[in-house]
């Protein structure tokens, strides 16, 4: 089980391969990767603020909860903070299980909780100014199903 909160970029593919290799015998690997998206071509960049200390605690709690609910042989969370450019990878999660349904459910659970319960805040910088990304009601609602 690995949690990394870092300013520097990570290599999604290399992390996915390393995770799959170390989860020998798992059978089913699921990964999620979030990319800085530029919906209308005006995004210049993004700044991610976080709460050092609480971030790691929150991610550990979320991951422990996922492990208690599903049969996982391994899990990985990497989340960046600081300045990011459009197209850069913000974060990834990976889950490994003998059963694909567990790997999928756990990865989606980790994402849902990470979105609304881990202390990260995104600020977008566009051609016309900058502003904090507002939390989506759909993200809060997504927690209710678990």
């Amino acid at each position, binding site marked *: 089980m690995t949690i990394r909160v870092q300013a520097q970029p990570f290599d999604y593919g290399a992390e996915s391969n390393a995770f799959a290799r170390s989860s020998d015998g798992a059978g089913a690997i699921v990964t999620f990767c979030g990319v800085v998206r530029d919906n209308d071509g005006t995004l210049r960049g993004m700044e991610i603020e976080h709460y050092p200390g609480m971030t790691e605690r929150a991610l550990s709690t979320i991951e422990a909860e996922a492990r208690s609910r599903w049969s996982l042989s391994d899990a990985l969370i990497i989340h960046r903070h600081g300045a990011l450019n459009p197209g850069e990878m913000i974060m990834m999660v990976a889950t490994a299980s003998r059963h694909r349904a567990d790997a999928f459910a756990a990865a989606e659970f980790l994402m849902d909780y990470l979105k609304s319960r881990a202390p990260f805040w995104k600020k977008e910088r566009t051609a016309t100014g900058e502003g*904090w990304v507002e939390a989506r009601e759909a993200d809060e609602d997504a927690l209710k199903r678990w």
Partner: protein
Amino acid sequence: MTLTILYFAWLRERIGLPRETVQTEAATVADLVDELRAREERYAFTFADLKAVRVALDQELTDFDAPLAGVREVAFFPPMTGG
């Protein structure tokens, strides 16, 4: 009691500092917020709508009616937008 208060995202920007130390006898988070609001306009402005604010005590998410007894670190921030 002495509390460290942390502010993140637009709360940090509106109040103009990332952290401060306060002396308070506030019993709950809500009491502390009332004290802060009474201090200066920027606090009143920042805490005008608590529906847009979340609070953590010693790095655990909680509610505004949570007691402050034994707490060392209070953090105020908007709903989280990670992922």
